[in-house]
């Protein structure tokens, strides 16, 4: 993978305009959202800066708008654009964090199960299958529900983001474990692994130094796809009111807030965050597709 990037990466990338556009969109969103305090025209969740007088203003190109609010304001007079940037930051954080957690657990399980085989493999993969029988949303709901009941309300609301990462990450590791295990089974049969054994290298170093770099390709592709899934799961949970608190809404929570006013003509509060979520997810999927094709020599 890495030696290939040096020679063909830019050529293959520039040959796919869709991927260039998608990567650009992701880049803009990541920059815009992570640096939200710099880019956002307002601080939407600071009560001192919002005025109820500015409520329900439409986007600038509509009649009766205010140039200070590019994409309009919501019922409480918060700037929709700023809320989207801050909300997107939470969505991206949860997406990346959850996938990172899934990758760590899934790779550990998959490497062990695939390399040692036999009983280790049987036990680990049965656990994975049991986990797989529960839909991710259900696990996240359960996790969220338990913590909400056990933790004090103020700690719970502050810990919303880590809890979401934990809940979604724990629900998503099985796919990584499976794909890693399958790749390890292939790599283990290769002669270079036998050569390592012949040299007498410890098992741990064979797994980490020799096998792991060779299975990162499929993991990378799955991770890109799973980021999109995790973002959607987070949005779903927040939409259901189980995610981030309304004082610090993610994209899902913004959509939920906006959806209540959709039929009162205040469409911008729901359409803009919704579009942003859609574009973000589609862009991640398209880039993941390209990475998969790029890493598969048979398709080139």
């Amino acid at each position: 993978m890495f030696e290939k990037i040096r020679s063909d990466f830019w050529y293959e990338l520039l040959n796919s305009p869709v991927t260039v556009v998608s990567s650009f969109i992701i880049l803009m969103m990541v920059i815009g959202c992570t640096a939200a305090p710099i880019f956002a025209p307002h601080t939407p969740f600071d009560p001192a800066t919002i005025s109820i007088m500015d409520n329900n203003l439409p986007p600038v190109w509509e009649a009766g708008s205010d140039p200070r609010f590019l994409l309009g304001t919501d019922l409480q007079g918060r700037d929709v654009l700023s809320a989207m940037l801050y909300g997107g930051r939470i969505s991206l954080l949860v997406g990346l964090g959850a996938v990172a957690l899934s990758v760590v657990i899934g790779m550990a399980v998959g490497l062990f199960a695939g390399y040692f085989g036999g009983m280790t493999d049987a036990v680990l993969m049965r656990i994975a299958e049991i986990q797989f029988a529960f839909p991710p949303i259900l696990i996240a709901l359960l996790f969220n529900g338990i913590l909400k009941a056990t933790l004090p309300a103020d700690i719970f609301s502050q810990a919303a983001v880590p809890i979401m990462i934990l809940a979604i990450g724990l629900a998503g590791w099985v796919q990584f474990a499976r794909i890693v295990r399958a790749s390890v089974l292939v790599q283990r049969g290769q002669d270079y692994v036998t050569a390592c054994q012949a040299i007498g290298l410890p098992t741990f170093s064979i797994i980490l130094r020799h096998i792991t770099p060779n299975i990162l390709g499929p993991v990378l592709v799955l991770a890109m796809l799973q980021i999109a899934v995790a973002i959607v799961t987070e949005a779903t949970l927040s939409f259901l009111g189980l995610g981030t608190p309304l004082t610090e809404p993610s994209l899902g929570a913004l959509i939920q807030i906006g959806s209540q006013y959709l039929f009162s003509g205040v469409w911008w509060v729901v359409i803009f965050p919704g579009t942003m979520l859609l574009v973000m997810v589609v862009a991640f999927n398209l880039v993941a597709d390209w990475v998969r094709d790029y890493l598969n020599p048979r398709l080139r």
Partner: protein
Amino acid sequence: MTDLLCKTENLQITFPHRLGDFVAVQGFDMEVRRGEIVGLIGESGAGKSTIGNAIMGLLSHPGKITSGNIYLDGENLIGTSDAQMAQLRGRRIGMIFQDPMTSLNPLMTVGEQLSESIALLQDIALPKAWAMAVDRLDGVGIPDAEKRMDQYPHEFSGGMRQRVVIALAMAGDPDLLIADEPTTALDVSVQKQVLDLIRQICVKGSLGVVLVTHDMGVISETADRIYVMRHGKLVETGPTEQVIEAPSEQYTKDLIAAIPSIDRREDRFVNPPKKTGEIDQWLLKGGPAHNDGDYLTTSALTKDFSIRKTSFWGKSSSFRAVNVEALTIKRGEVLGLVGESGSGKSTLGRILTGLIKPSTGSVSFGDHGALADIKSARARKALRRDVQVVFQDPYSSLNSRMRIDQILAEPIQFHGLAGKAEMGHLVGALLERVGLPADSGRKFPHQFSGGQRQRICIARALSVRPRFLLCDEPTSALDVSIQADMLALLMELRRSLGLTMLFVSHDLAVVRQVSDRVAVMKAGQIVECQDAEALYNAPGSNYTQMLLDTAPRVGARNTSEQIN
């Protein structure tokens, strides 16, 4: 000239690439007559398969014919549409592929595949086609054809499967048959039968056959005329006897000279030891002073592999892959281990190097004691340092994510044989010792050819200063000219470093060149084991005799008269 069947004229095939077009075949002229086998020989990358595919109209994307003509019975195939080509394939041109495993559909019975092809290609009703298919199977020498029609490909052996593939290629009664390495995946004893069958079909049906292969032995026994190719160009052509016995081009001469002979042991693989440099002193450091006695002895060994139960309540059964009497390898000797695929020779090799445990029996090393008694990490490490392996496939035996210097430094570091300071120098010296530039260490494995990779594998094995080297088919994946270099290198290293070797191979000719003693394996058992010269000159068992008789020899051609 009515017997002229197929002709290529100034054929040029190009594979466009963004870094410049790659010309795979250039200015190639060939003629195939009816009732004649034309051999197309060359090393890997010579473009021989590309020509076969081009005649079939099956060039892989993005390759295309950029100039020249292909005539079939006087009709130019260049410019025919894909649909017209599809009509020709099967009906006028048949193809036999290398791997009989993948060229049959595993989910259809042999009868279904064959009768369907016949029905489609000859435009007749299925019941009638079925009857014809039975005839055809019978015709390619499959006993009990009627019964076997209902069996699936996996129920056939490799040779039988290749016969089915031939019957399939003949389903539309083509005029021209293209056989692309038809016997490369088969054992020697089966190879001969399949080649005889191809010759028989060619003569009887007065077909033109293009036999594409890298194996000079196969081609010299089968073909009437030979085209020698190199780098996409024709080197030499002529009747088989002329090309084999009196080649006019240097390349052909080198190619023929590189083929190890099964009939004698040749001197050119036994180079005198080079003057031992600094690196040889390092490699010999810590070796035992004496070099006599047994390096390795075993008791009777068996290895069973369990077979998956066929049903839930079924008894689990096992398959005995290895079942051999006691074996010894003397210090400094090369023991050759030959056998056909599935004979258990690789498994035995891995048992003898301690990579897998035998089911019963024990292996014990002169310097380390019995394998079963080696329990401490330290003793294990000492054994692992002493015993190294060179594998068959140079592509899978190097980790493609690591640089060459990392690959070579890791074992040295792990066994504490050199400090960090001297590592760079040492790695360079090792690479030079196996015939690569000292600065190759900065590259990745994919930047090397198969032969170069195999040299790196040898360097890696040497890097821990081993006393015993298992070579598991080290040259099977290489071209003959490179094979010769590799054998010379291994033999030279063995002389200079006094290595003990176990040389596993299916190729009797190669084993003869390198071994002091030879063991022949069949179905997990050692059929005979004796001094190499004695074994080749007067084999002690019928099986060995049969292997020696069926091995293809350069310059020993079957004429069509012999067959009829």
